[in-house]
């Protein structure tokens, strides 16, 4: 993780002030650094201020400042009406959030981790996702379900599952998976402004990672469109497609591979559903090789879907080798560090898979 931090801090720049461009300065304007959790906080703060129908509910979001401090300061600023601490009753409060959305409010429902969303999954799928369709466009459900998803560090099997594939399976839901701070802010603002149910998958290990925020991203109206992927690094030999934390791993692997003359194109999906297949296809048609990287389990996962879609589309004819998936190991998450480290994709796994795919 330290490596990824080094990658993204531009050395020698003033990290504190956000100044406009000045014509007579030759250097680029100073950029602001922000941790992912603060970007999320800022997004919610701005949207709470912008629209009084927006409110946040979940366990420990108010007086505790958020289990992971993502909602720090919000209760103090907005009070009991807008920031609501709930009892530990996911099915109940997720249902309450959906009902509130049906009746005209715009709730943000936080799950302490998405593992707990399983208790409420019926409300997310049957009450939220399907309702606009079942009512033939009469009843919309403008709600955001957000929280940390996937593996953390040492939290073992029941607290480490990735839910991207499960939620992305369902029509009527949008599923978003930001990587860096700018993603987090722009996508969360879009999700809150969206009139549909959005599952917003964060990552606990990314909360404390600082990233540079572009000037554009510091505006209160900065949003990133849902459904569009971003090419984080241009390349020519292989397309690395990933989401959330593993984008960092891909970029690190790309640096190592570049020393050997292999130029990786790294795509940050940003949204899982709807998937930006065109971005992937364009890349594959250029590089002729595809490797997907995710933290979730291999079977029926995000990578599996990408491979199937590439096969069904024009990019298949451009593949010089079968697509490869790099995924979490197909086991419940173990506890011991050595076991946990070897249950998730490492940079060396990505490098190995790229070389295998390129047959070098």
């Amino acid at each position: 993780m330290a490596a990824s931090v080094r990658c993204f801090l531009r050395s020698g720049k003033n990290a504190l002030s956000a100044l406009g461009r000045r014509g007579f300065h030759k250097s680029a304007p100073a950029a602001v650094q922000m941790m992912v959790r603060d970007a999320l906080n800022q997004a919610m703060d701005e949207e709470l201020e912008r629209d009084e129908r927006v409110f946040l509910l979940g366990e420990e979001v108010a007086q505790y400042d958020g289990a992971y401090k993502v909602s720090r300061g919000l209760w103090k600023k907005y009070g009991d009406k807008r920031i609501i601490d709930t009892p530990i009753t996911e099915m109940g409060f997720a249902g309450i959030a959906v009902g509130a959305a049906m009746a005209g409010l715009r709730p943000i429902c936080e799950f302490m981790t998405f593992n707990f969303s399983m208790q409420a999954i019926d409300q997310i799928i049957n009450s939220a996702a399907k309702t606009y369709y079942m009512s033939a466009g009469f009843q919309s459900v403008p709600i955001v379900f957000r929280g940390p998803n996937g593996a953390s560090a040492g939290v073992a099997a029941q607290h480490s599952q990735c839910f991207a594939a499960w939620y992305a399976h369902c029509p009527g839901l949008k599923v978003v998976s930001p990587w860096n701070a700018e993603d987090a802010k722009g996508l969360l603002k879009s999700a809150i402004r969206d009139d549909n149910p959005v599952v917003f998958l964060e990552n606990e290990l990314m909360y404390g990672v600082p990233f540079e925020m572009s000037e554009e991203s510091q505006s209160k109206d900065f949003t990133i469109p849902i459904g569009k992927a971003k090419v984080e690094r241009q390349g020519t030999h292989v397309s690395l497609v990933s989401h959330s934390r593993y984008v960092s791993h891909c970029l690190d692997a790309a640096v190592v591979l570049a020393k050997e003359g292999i130029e990786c194109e790294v795509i940050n999906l940003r949204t899982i559903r709807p998937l930006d297949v065109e971005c992937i296809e364009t890349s594959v048609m250029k590089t002729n090789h595809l490797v997907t990287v995710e933290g979730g389990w291999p079977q029926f996962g995000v990578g599996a879907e990408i491979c199937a879609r590439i096969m069904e589309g024009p990019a298949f004819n451009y593949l010089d080798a079968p697509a490869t998936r790099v995924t979490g190991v197909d086991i419940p998450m173990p506890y011991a560090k050595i076991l946990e480290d070897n249950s998730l994709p490492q940079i060396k796994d990505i490098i190995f898979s790229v070389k295998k795919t390129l047959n070098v």
Partner: protein
Amino acid sequence: MKNMLTIISNALCRITGRNVGAQTVSELLIDLSEYVNVTSPVSAPALAQAQAQRQPPKPPPVSTRAPAAQLVSAQTDQLDTPGTRVVVSRSFADFTSQATFDIKKCDVHRLEEGPPLKAELTRDQGLQYYRVMQTVRRMELKADQLYKQKIIRGFCHLYDGQEACAVGIEAAINPSDHLITAYRAHGYTYTRGIAIKEILAELTGRRGGVAKGKGGSMHMYAPHFYGGNGIVGAQIPLGAGIALACQYQGNNQVCVALYGDGAANQGQLFESFNMAALWKLPCIFTCENNQYGMGTSVERASASTDYYKRGDFIPGIRVDGMDVLCVREAFKFAAEHCRSGKGPIVIELKTYRYHGHSMSDPGVSYRTREEIQEVRSKSDPITMLKERMLSNNMASVEEFKEIDIAIRKEVEEAAQYATSDPEPPLEELCNHIFSNDSPLDVRGTNPWARLKSVS
């Protein structure tokens, strides 16, 4: 004139929130009649021999959102012969215009006092409640018929026997209040303002159905009516959430969240009770206890069958759900309780369903025909109201007969519509996935099938 009608119709579409534009004058009038509080300007009591037709007087609707269907026929009559009214063999002045009835005392839980022991009923109200209950009854029986003819398929959970609940509730709350229920929802869809023909057409899966054929029996919606929910118990947290929105918006509205005796044991109910009580949400949790959860009697499912007490720290009332006046008074009491900021309340309506759980359940394997017959003869909600009115000289036998005939005709016409309306067009298969979104591609059954979806 047509221009003005278009303008009014557009305004109405905005009010109703329905995406239906009036195409013809008569359709516009149907919309109009839903929203215009048509009181019957009864002209001087007419004498029998001066009239050309025999019709019962048309009473004002229960609420300003009386179901359109029953106003349609009156509206066209008005157009045909403006000014001619009332025609029964006895003149209007012969009937008692208002009476007070004793109603059963309700068992209460954590309440100093319960709903009143007397209920006032005007002649107009009585006829209206009768009309609505009878319409629901006939509509459900028509659905039974259509299901047996295989014109309705899938799930069909019928409400006959329980009419007093839906009608009593609607009589007590405002159109601006909110209501959500489970899958036995056709009656509520009607009382909350949807026309019979749209309900039946939804059951037969046609484009004229209230959900354009996409929802079916369990997924019908209307303004301030949130369905129709298929997952047992899931509607209760939703109802509490709607109540939260009422509190948040400070609009003094309440939410009635209904569930059955089967759902009463669901964990999510107790999660909702907890949060509703904690935050004092204006939610009326209502258990329609019809004695059986599918094929399981209450004694076999619940350790405690005092459903009105199951809210524990939430006050509760147990009500005779076969008496429309009892139901109405209880809900007036409950709505006042919620609106005054006291928090949620639980109401148990003791009621009975004549049909089985659904159309695939004959309903006699877990209860006797004698039991069903006994309820029908001793406690039928429609009969009870009729007898009350007759014995207090509030209406005549002929009047009720006329109403019955008119309703039968209406339901028959609605069924006609529901069986002849075309099915939804295939082009609309993928629409309504997302709200307010740009069009998207939807994968069909094979990779070359790229279907279109618009909001």
